[in-house]
């Protein structure tokens, strides 16, 4: 990822940290550093917003119900397996 543009290098360095920034897992100094950069850099701000929306979509993607037929079969199999042996 060779690049002579110091601005671009800075963006790429922060690009690596965006998930940790979103998850509030960066040390406070680095967190402030990313925050300040994103406030000034439109490209990084766009990247951050799309990443945040991706995460939000994953969190809201919803759950399926267990098919009733499978649940009955599962309980029957486990019941026969977990039954203690006859004395």
């Amino acid at each position, binding site marked *: 990822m060779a690049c002579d543009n110091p601005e671009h290098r800075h963006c790429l360095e922060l690009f690596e940290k965006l998930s940790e920034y979103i998850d509030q897992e960066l040390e406070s100094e680095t967190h402030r550093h990313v925050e300040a950069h994103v406030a000034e850099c439109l*490209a990084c701000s766009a990247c951050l*917003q799309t990443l*945040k929306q991706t995460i939000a979509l994953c969190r809201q993607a919803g*759950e399926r119900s267990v098919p009733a037929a499978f649940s009955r079969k599962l309980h029957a*199999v*486990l*019941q026969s397996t977990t039954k203690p042996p006859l004395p």
Partner: protein
Amino acid sequence: MTAAPPSNRPKINDNDTELIEAINSGQTEKFSELVRRYEQKLYNFGRRMCGDAADAEDLVQDTFLNVFRYLKDFRHETKFKNWLYRVAASTCIKKRRRSKFAPERELSLEEFVSGEEPGAAAQVPDWAQIPLEKLLNEELVQTLHQAILSLPEQYRMVVVLRDMEGFSTEETAQIMNISSTNVKVRLHRARLFLREKLKGYFAHGL
């Protein structure tokens, strides 16, 4: 999964502790209550990891059979739910190893930065600004699930555990038996991969 050696770690009590102690003291009929509590969570984990309903059902059944077999070794050093997912993750990895021999693809950061030239995305795209309730529909959910399934497994499991099942970085590291640093690296790449797929979907309606 072998018997855990005794340790001095404090015992964690959660909503499942009493039930597990009852099962371990011989009331095995109560195991079905434990299954009831977690079958839906595990089924969804299975669908997200395997895609196919039949494979997900196998994963759920094999996981509960393993849980019953090893429940006496559970030392309450972590929440039961985390231990359950550790068993499920391990069962899932073993199943995949049996069915696939191709080496896993690594995702590199470089493959995601090409579109991030300065100025390349000088504005936030519409899809990232629309409220979720307006954005989410069945087609988008399907696209997202397909994108998750196209992730290499080691990345898929991290993003499923962190962003869909709601585990923390440390919990995910414990479940997958990898370092927290590794979780963070894989998670970032997995998220970038999904973001690329979503960008494609919103740009071309694919």
